């Protein structure tokens, strides 16, 4: 999705001049799945704060990304319950199949692999979330199936 400065100006105006920097950045992140460089510059100008401050907040919190994300997000829960039930193997399998490390995006910009510290669905561990769909009791085999399904969907979209 291409960055639209006018949209951001509108967001900032809606939030008011005293708006929390974090709330504005969260909106940008939700809209574009990352924080475009131009957006951060514009936020800094409009909110009247140094770009360094915007950058420090943008790099401090995990929810923000400075690089574009894939269309689909595959998130592996690495919380304790998932860890002791084999989340490492599940993550390793996804890393190998997608050819990216956590935080990385496949070259075709379709998938971003992420980890999360705990989703609180500990009874279902290991949990993998594909976009907003939770998949529980994951194994190496089930990951393969999930990926197959996801890739088929991508194929259909194209």
């Amino acid at each position, binding site marked *: 999705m291409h960055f639209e400065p006018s949209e951001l100006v509108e967001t900032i105006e809606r939030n008011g001049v005293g708006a*929390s920097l974090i709330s504005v950045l969260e909106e940008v992140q939700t809209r574009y799945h990352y924080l475009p460089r131009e957006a951060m510059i514009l936020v800094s100008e409009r909110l009247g704060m140094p770009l360094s401050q915007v950058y420090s907040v943008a790099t*401090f*919190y995990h929810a923000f990304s400075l690089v574009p994300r894939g269309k689909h997000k595959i998130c592996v829960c690495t919380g*304790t*319950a998932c*860890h002791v039930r084999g989340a490492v193997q599940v993550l390793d399998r996804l890393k190998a199949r997608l050819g990216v490390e956590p935080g990385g995006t496949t070259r075709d910009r379709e998938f971003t692999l992420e980890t999360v510290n705990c989703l*609180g*669905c500990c009874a*279902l561990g290991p949990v993998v979330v594909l976009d907003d769909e*939770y998949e529980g009791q994951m194994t190496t085999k089930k990951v393969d199936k999930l990926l197959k399904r996801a890739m088929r969907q991508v194929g259909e979209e194209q």
Partner: protein
Amino acid sequence: MIELRNPQALVDYCQRIRTAADPQQRRIRVCDGTGCRALGSRRVLARLQETLGEAGLAGEIEVVPTGCPGFCELGPLITIDPEKIAYNRVSVDDVPAIVAKTIARGEIIDGLVFVDPVTGQTIIHDNELPFYTKQMRRVLELNGEIDPSRIEDYIAHDGYASLSKALYKMTPEQVIEEVRQSGLRGRGGAGFSTGLKWRFCRQSPGDVKYIICNADEGDPGAFMDRSILEGNPHSVVEGMIIGAYAMGATQGYVYVRNEYPLAVQNLRIALKRAREHGLLGKNILGSGFDFDIEIRVGSGAFVCGEETALMASIEGKIGEPRPRPPYPAQSGLWGKPTNINNVKTWSNIPLIVRNGADWFSSVGTENSKGTMIFSLVGNIRNTGLVEVPMGISLRELIYDVGGGVPGGKEFKAAQIGGPSGGCIPKEHLDVPIDYESLTALGAIMGSGGLVVADEDTCMVDLARYFLKFTQEESCGKCVPCRIGTRAMLQTLERICAGQGREGDIEYLIELGQEVKRSSLCALGGTAPNPVLTTIRYFRDEYEAHIYDKKCPARVCKGLITYEIVAELCSGCMVCARNCPAGAITGEKGQPHVINPQVCSRCGVCQSLCKFDAIVVY
């Protein structure tokens, strides 16, 4: 929408709701918490409504989405009233039979009721399930009973009656005194007296004061705060309004993790409904008291669970903690007196105001009163949320409530308090669960995450896991935490990789104690706990890693070898095709071989082998 302008209006409204409700009303409660949703409860709920509609029963039978009753292991959970028939692991395909048999003819479906794995006894009613009967559900009482989006449900269960009592029958000082006398201690981890904390904030000079609900539940393996916000958000809202009245605050914030979208959604609805009913905002219940609550969604930083970091985050800054004093009660959010309590602490408040300090403190031990909510996770049969009286033994909690360790495995340790806590081994299973006893063993009560490790868990690896977590979440402001946790992690990684050296254990102990002593906030102040307690109780496992180059639980990749048992291998080639390292060779139909020099120990081959031909040692 009705606006309640005085206490009598609330009483009348509650009465009207109760009179209108038919106790014999047939209704189906469906758990709509995050856990059951992940297991497909939304589809079950939709199918139930559809099937009831087709059968012409839509008007007669209510389908109620509720919060999480706690028994996540058996989700999706549904309960049929008035009989309280509990069905578990319900799938969409079960719905037609449920409607045709149970709803229409009152028949029980065998495959859906609970069968005790130990006694083999069938249990039909949810109030008879051993998982619940061993608990003492106070805070969680209404989770699973009420529809969290309906304020009427909460009011019908005496909701907001405590607020009315506090505003009209008690002075702020009396409220604080009641809370102090109850012995309630902060449920977020540190366990400071809530009443005293409130008094400090009350006595702090200033016209503007804030209160905050800390719902930045970051401990992996703990999800009780989320479940309370999802399942009974009004209890937290009511607790906060009472607290605001007692401390003289006019604005409150709930700081929630962004990983909890449903909790945010349900809380948002609750705030809206409370405002519409005159229970939040200007002139609450006609008392002249003004107070409102805003939600702030976190952006994914564990350190923001620390109170000073959390306040910085609400102010829109990076979530770095700052030294205390000054404490938030003197100078908190935007420099104003501020009080921060955990979700569970707030939701205990309406119960204390309604039932009195004596009722609250009748349960528990000398210094730890009331109940405590734990999330039982890991290698335990009944994964889920439980509320038990303080002072219950760890053994009762794990075996009687939690159902013990599944798969015939041995219990090894319980990690209490998440990455800030410590592990408690088998020898101490009879320890009473209270703040002091847990601290004496090197663990902490924390926010109630309890991870059970069985014989297959490597304690060195578990310590490494927690330290990796805290190290990554360290904000980097103070040196002991930033550098100290990193140095400890590097040592642990070396040990797990089979490169442990003599002196490593002593180094970890010395450094761990120093990091604890000199870190700025509780993150660094507790981060070494998992390492120090595993060394204390499982030193032999560390020694096996370092001196014998063996991982007794066969977990640490650097210390294990995968091998194919030639007699069991059918030569199907699945492992060879899927080995990401290309370490497996062999002809079709012939036993395969793993080259240990190339093998990355990922375990994919073992998980894919249909013949159990791959062993680890």
